[in-house]
């Protein structure tokens, strides 16, 4: 770890002035680890944890008939515990509860979680070549130990997996990020936040360098309660996904009117599986259609020496998520219309 300047931002405006030449720290669960490992060595770190004193919305969960608004400094555990989120957006609550450990979730902010960086072992040890960490140095994972690595959205420069869980849930809920920059506030779909590696794996997001995530905005939908997150990993807790699937379904009788599907643990970015969605629309939801959708989801998979298992595993995980979501019952009417929670 190298020395760095440490500041606390007292206001969003102050944070915005700092953000273009500093690294922002909130929960620190990802950044501090990577600073210790020498993966990143920021010259300046700005702590934004105090911002919710000035701008309360940054630390607040709001749930009403329009939807859900999660301040960027809300901790994962706070959102996970929220009864309204559990009732109306179960895929989101599931994805949070299955992430990391409770200790980490108590520290980690939602804004930071969305941007968490890959756990690729070759990325995390600074002496390996890595196109993401040291552009142009090569990729040690392509022909290395790549059991954890992605099969979707890869390139010849990088096959590192996006490790998070929540982002997949946000994708199927059509969520947006609220970005605050010098020019004001804008909304951007979560689906547009992450960039596939292509030839430039070091460019991970589309966020402008002088912007700050200030909130996650999830629109209300009549069927967001019919949503599920299934995650399979090497042990039953405290591990990243080998494969995961987030689904949200709009059913009319037993037919699929609309489907949203996102895959985790198998792709370089939070992966929206549109082909699988198309395959389901208009069909009854059953083993056969779910399996056909799962096959469509992985049609473009490119496997390496040690990660071919992720295709059948990812397919099975998706089938489980679809069938479990199909079997969900709506929440009781008394809690159907959201209430505002501080």
């Amino acid at each position: 770890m190298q020395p760095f300047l440490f500041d606390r931002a007292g206001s969003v405006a102050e944070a915005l002035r700092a953000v273009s030449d500093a690294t922002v720290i909130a929960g620190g669960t990802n950044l501090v680890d990577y600073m210790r490992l020498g993966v990143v060595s920021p010259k300046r770190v700005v702590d934004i944890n105090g911002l919710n004193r000035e701008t309360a919305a940054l630390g607040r969960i709001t749930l009403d008939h329009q939807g859900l608004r999660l301040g960027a400094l809300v901790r994962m555990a706070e959102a996970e515990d929220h009864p309204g989120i559990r009732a109306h957006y179960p895929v989101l609550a599931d994805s949070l509860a299955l992430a990391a450990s409770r200790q980490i979730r108590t520290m980690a902010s939602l804004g930071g979680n969305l941007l968490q960086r890959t756990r690729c072992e070759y990325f995390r040890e600074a002496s390996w070549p890595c196109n993401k960490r040291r552009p142009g140095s090569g990729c040690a994972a392509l022909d290395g130990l790549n059991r954890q690595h992605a099969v979707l959205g890869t390139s010849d420069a990088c096959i590192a997996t996006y490790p998070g869980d929540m982002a997949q849930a946000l994708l199927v809920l059509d969520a947006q990020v609220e970005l605050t920059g010098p020019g004001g506030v804008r909304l951007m779909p979560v689906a547009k936040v992450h960039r596939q590696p292509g030839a430039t794996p070091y460019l991970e997001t589309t966020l402008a360098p002088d912007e700050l995530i200030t909130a996650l905005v999830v629109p209300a939908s009549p069927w967001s309660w019919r949503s599920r997150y299934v995650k399979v990993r090497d042990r039953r807790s405290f591990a990243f996904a080998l494969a995961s699937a987030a689904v949200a379904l709009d059913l009319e009788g037993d037919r699929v009117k609309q489907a949203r599907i996102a895959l985790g643990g198998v792709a370089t970015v939070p992966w929206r599986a549109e082909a699988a969605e198309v395959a389901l629309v208009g069909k009854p939801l059953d083993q056969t259609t779910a399996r056909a959708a799962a096959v469509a989801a992985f049609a473009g998979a490119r496997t390496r020496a040690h990660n071919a298992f992720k295709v059948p595993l990812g397919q099975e995980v998706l089938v489980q998520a679809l069938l479990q979501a199909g079997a969900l019952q709506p929440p009781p009417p008394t809690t159907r219309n959201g209430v505002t929670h501080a």
Partner: protein
Amino acid sequence: MGAPVARIDGRLKVTGQARYPADTPLHNLAHGVMVTSTIARGRIRSLDTTAAASVPGVLLVLTRDQAQGQLTAPKFGTGGSTSIQPLNEERIWHDGQTVAIVVAETPEVAREAADLVAITYDHDTPSAGFDASGVEIVDGAGASPMYPEDPKAGDFDTAFKAAPVVLDATYNTAAQHHNPMELFSTTAEWNDGQLTVYEPSQFVAGWRAQLAKQLDMDAANIRVVSEYIGGAFGSKGPMTPRTAAVALAAKLVKRPVRCVCARAQGYTTATFRAETRQRIRMGAGRDGKIRAFSHEGWELTSRPDDYVVGGTETTARLYAYGAVHTKVQLVKADRNTPGYMRSPPETPYVFGLECAMDEMAEKLGLDPVEFRRVNDTQADPVSGKRYTSRSLMRCYDEAAAAFGWQRRLDAGVWKTGAMREGDWLVGLGCATAVYPTQVAPCAARVRLTADGKALLQTSAHEIGTGVRTVAAQTAAQALGLSVEDVTVEMGDSALPAGPVAGGSVSTASVCSAVLKACGAIRDKLYRAATVNSGPPATPESFTLRDGMAVLDSGRSAPLSALLQKLGTTQLEEYAEFAPEGSAPGAVEQLRQGNPGIMGGAKGPVLMYAFGAEFVEVRVHARTGEIRVPRMVGAFAAGRIMNPRTARSQLMGGMIWGLGAALHEMTEIDPRHARTVNRDLQDYLLPVNADVEGVEVILVPETDTEVNPAGVKGLGELGNVGTSSAIASAIYHATGRRLRDIPMRLDTLLQLQQT
């Protein structure tokens, strides 16, 4: 059986009051950080410390240039983890080899400067493991004094050819690293030519002797202190070269220096359990009797050191085989030298054997429990020597009953996939646990004071097993005191020499020495009690209890009165215990660093502890996820000094076995021979959610031959066989034979695809 006394240091540990070596407060302490190599094989071409040395607060960058000539290379195999002192080396022998130690005012400055040490290398292509080109293969027999020869009996080839039912299978076990909660660390302090080292150690007496040689000084001027240890299991047994190097750094900067290894550095600067490959051939008659058994093992080791575990020493004697053939070979690659990890020989080799037993039972159509019964023996098939006691089948019977093994028999013993529950395939399996009963020389001092309290001192080590508590119980019982009245001091080379905390010798050895010292105190009290009072009605009626000496029903005296009679306020006895058959001077040898471990298969009789483990697994039919909802183990290990700590040891062992079966594996990049998963995120250990029901049954067993305490060490018994039991249950659930550990869902998925 002894009383289930709670650990006397439990509260200290959970409230943070127990002081681990790196917690020792020292005045004017400087901090060291190691710089380690990023290649596995080659030479250091250049090492530039200019930038590192110019960081304000840096006191020293200790490299080969500064160390030259001041550190004698360790000797491998006598308590030294390797024969390499890396600070003497220009050559890189393995990934993560120490190339410098940066010493600074604070750990932060040292870490910053360590990152600035600029090293260039001349690379050679390394050999990473078994399947790499360039490895060297040597015979295990004779490579180490621990493994003089491959056990053999009869004519295997002929017996195997003639056997009507045969098996020939290959098994693999993965490399595993220790990851103790307490990081590896060394703190060294000099005072007027006297060196004190605070470091987590399983052998302070041996380390003092090692340090004397490596630093070329008199052992009398060295003290090694290791009062509490946060996870050892062999990783803190042999001394690594860091200890002497940090002592040298402290000497050079003329201040105490503390060096705490980063988690990742623990993978390459400490020892590990190396991977093994095993081939087992077995031939049996239709009656189920094994007539021929061959166990060949390949073990990975380093280029400079021939570390051998040789688990064939145990597997060759486990059943009544008929002809026995074994052979161990070492595969030397560009890796750091492996070392001990909880039951080093038995864990891998019994995995292979017990998997083979399960496969053979199926070929014979026998209940796997009955197959073991048919081949149970009370004598060694290799030497004919008898076991002092062997309660293997009693363990099987008790565990089978508690587990409900009948369910599998009712379902048709070899009908796989028969116990499905929804998407989950249920399977039941079992395997044998075995560990040699060993004992070592030990010295102890016991002081009884007039206030009815006792102090017990030995340099033996509380590595988390509960031996401090058991030693206090032993002294309390012998002197008629309560456990709370006994203070135990351990883990300091200034105390009477205790054994290495290895080979599960501690309880047997320490208690034997404590009993001897207490016996001498009791004799003095007896003489004092009988002066002017006459002898007791019978010699046995003289007892010490509740702080009193009782001659017989009518006559008793407080201890203080007896001490007064003796004209003293305290009685102190120093005792040396040496196992039967030890060479003369065994305790003096212990002080010289020679552990002197006896027992197992080495003596005129065989001493082993046994157990049987049963597990239930659930395998998801399509994802291949493996879960273990239930484990039941029954163990017979002689006298149980404290059922509470014994149960914890065995339960922890079974959980360890579960981790070995399903999770643990060190991943070595085959191109670069470098460890890739070097932290607790990527190196998987079971978490609480993975561990559901674990039941431990203690099967009563009396064995007065093994040692005066009647104790069979059980610290390393519980994790042996567990992974075979799980493999056996997975087969029962799925019909898939997995012969390599860890067994992960991808293997099952791949099998499904083919």
